[in-house]
């Protein structure tokens, strides 16, 4: 079962800007899913379409098997969204905001759950203050509480930790992990890629309204991530034509301290580390030091988006 099945979703704004172009994604139920992309990639447009703030130009979305556009009420009850922009009614206090939100979603306000949310998000002491009196970080946490107050099965977090300090961010993620372990599906957009890598089990990278890749995080880091073998000879090595031909499979590069070879996967799926190492030793002798540096999510993100922009331009 998928929490979201997005098929061929497109959006062209009135000014002609194509924000989404034939986007198809599946978000497995119970997953912690990262939706990544540079600014203007189309992430917020996609989220706003799911939240019924932006109308799609084409395509379809199913939420837990139900058509989002024809069964809006059913789907909305199961959806909680933390929007990117912080906005609260200045007339109300956090506890009123949560009670009203709960009611708007058709739920009888659950005071014990509201208290737990306020406590876990460190807002309990501030529950009676006007929302204008809260700091930026507090308001953002209140947005999270507001999105969770009706116990949605799918939570969309649109950059929820922007402006939140490291300590609180860590605690917020701890809380979201708990929600995830209880079966809540979480779709997260963030510019903190290390957080996405640590938290999420699935990832999609989009740019210019198109999906560049969408797969389980482990698969992305294992299959798509490139690795480099760094061989330190304590001196610069100038590659000759013969060296380049002999090591062509590893795309050799000179470095200040030696040489760098690109690793890949052999036909059987195993790393080419041994073959590359032995080939280097055969050409230059044993190095004084060596190491493997694999691409992390940020490297992959930059590589994919940069490559896509080069192709587009």
């Amino acid at each position, binding site marked *: 079962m998928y929490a979201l099945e997005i098929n061929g979703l497109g959006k062209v*704004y*009135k000014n002609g800007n194509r924000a989404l172009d034939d986007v198809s994604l599946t978000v497995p139920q119970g997953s912690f899913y990262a939706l990544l992309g540079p600014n203007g990639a189309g992430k917020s447009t996609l989220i*706003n379409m799911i*939240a*019924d*703030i*932006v*109308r799609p130009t084409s395509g379809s979305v199913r939420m837990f098997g139900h058509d989002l556009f024809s069964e*809006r*009420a*059913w789907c*909305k*009850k199961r*959806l909680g*969204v933390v*929007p990117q*922009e912080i*906005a*609260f*009614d*200045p*007339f*109300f206090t956090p506890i*009123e905001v949560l009670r*009203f*939100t*709960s*009611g*708007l*979603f*058709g*739920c*009888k306000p659950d005071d014990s759950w509201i208290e737990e949310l306020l406590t876990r998000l460190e807002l309990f002491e501030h529950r009676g203050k006007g929302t204008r009196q809260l700091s930026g970080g507090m308001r953002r946490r209140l947005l999270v509480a*507001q999105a969770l107050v009706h116990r949605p099965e799918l939570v969309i977090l649109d950059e929820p930790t922007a402006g939140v300090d490291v300590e609180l961010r860590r605690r917020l993620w701890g809380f979201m992990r708990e929600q995830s372990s209880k079966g809540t599906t979480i779709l997260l957009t963030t510019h903190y890629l290390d957080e996405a890598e640590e938290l999420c089990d699935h990832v999609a990278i989009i740019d210019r309204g198109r999906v560049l890749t969408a797969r389980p995080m482990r698969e992305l880091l294992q299959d798509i991530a490139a690795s480099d073998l760094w061989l330190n000879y304590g001196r610069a090595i100038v590659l000759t034509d013969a060296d380049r031909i002999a090591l062509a499979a590893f795309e050799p590069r000179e470095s200040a301290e030696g040489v760098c070879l690109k690793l890949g996967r052999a036909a059987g799926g195993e790393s080419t580390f041994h073959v590359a190492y032995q080939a280097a030793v055969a050409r230059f002798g044993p190095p004084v030091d060596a190491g493997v540096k694999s691409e992390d999510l940020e490297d992959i993100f930059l590589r994919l988006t940069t490559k896509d922009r080069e192709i587009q331009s």
Partner: protein
Amino acid sequence: MRPINPRGTWTLFLREIRRFLKVKMQTIVTPALTAMLYLVIFRYAMGDRDVPGMEIDYFTFLVPGLAIMAMMQNAFANTSSSMIMGKVMGMQIYLLMAPLSAIEVVTAFLAAAVVRAMIVATVFLAVLMPFVDISLQHLGLILLYGVAASLIMGGLGLISGMWAENFDNVAMVTNFVIMPLTFLSGVFYSVKQLPELWQQINAFNPFFYLTDGFRYGFLGIGDTDPFASVTIVLGSVAVTFVLCWYLWHIGWRMKD
């Protein structure tokens, strides 16, 4: 989206009431006081004169008119201010994301507008009761016209709030449309005092029927037959409600 969320509708209704009660000086006391100031000014300006063509003094004539004018203006202000604040401050998205149908949203907004209008009128009339000899000739008509006026104006406020992009836009509608139409609806004069041409023009002002019918409910006299005007008034309520429903349903000027 079918109407399936009565708790959500009730919550939105309560939220709207709570919103204006949080600033009751501005939303209840000030409008009632403004209406009283009008009354005092006209009382001293007109003295004990009777309204031409009616066997009633000007002071008594003014009271129901000012009451319904305050109701209309406050019903409009309640929905329009809520909508434009939501839009300008970015809170509108929470309403769009909630599982509420257009009928539910419109019902909640209009019901809250009626409540505010009723409270303002009640405060105004309660303060005046010891000073003016005014009776309730037809309570049913008073309620019918009072609620209808609040619904129509609440609906127009909702539409204005949806249309507006800033507070200035709402102020423009208030000052150039709502104020003239309410001031020219026979609050301060009987239309029989007007030249023939203006009487005919006035017949196209729906607010005139609201004011006249409401006044008839109190005084038992008016410029038109309030029982005959019921159709026009209920028709206006229906048109306003359907228009509000449709515009919210399509997300007019709210969804890209």
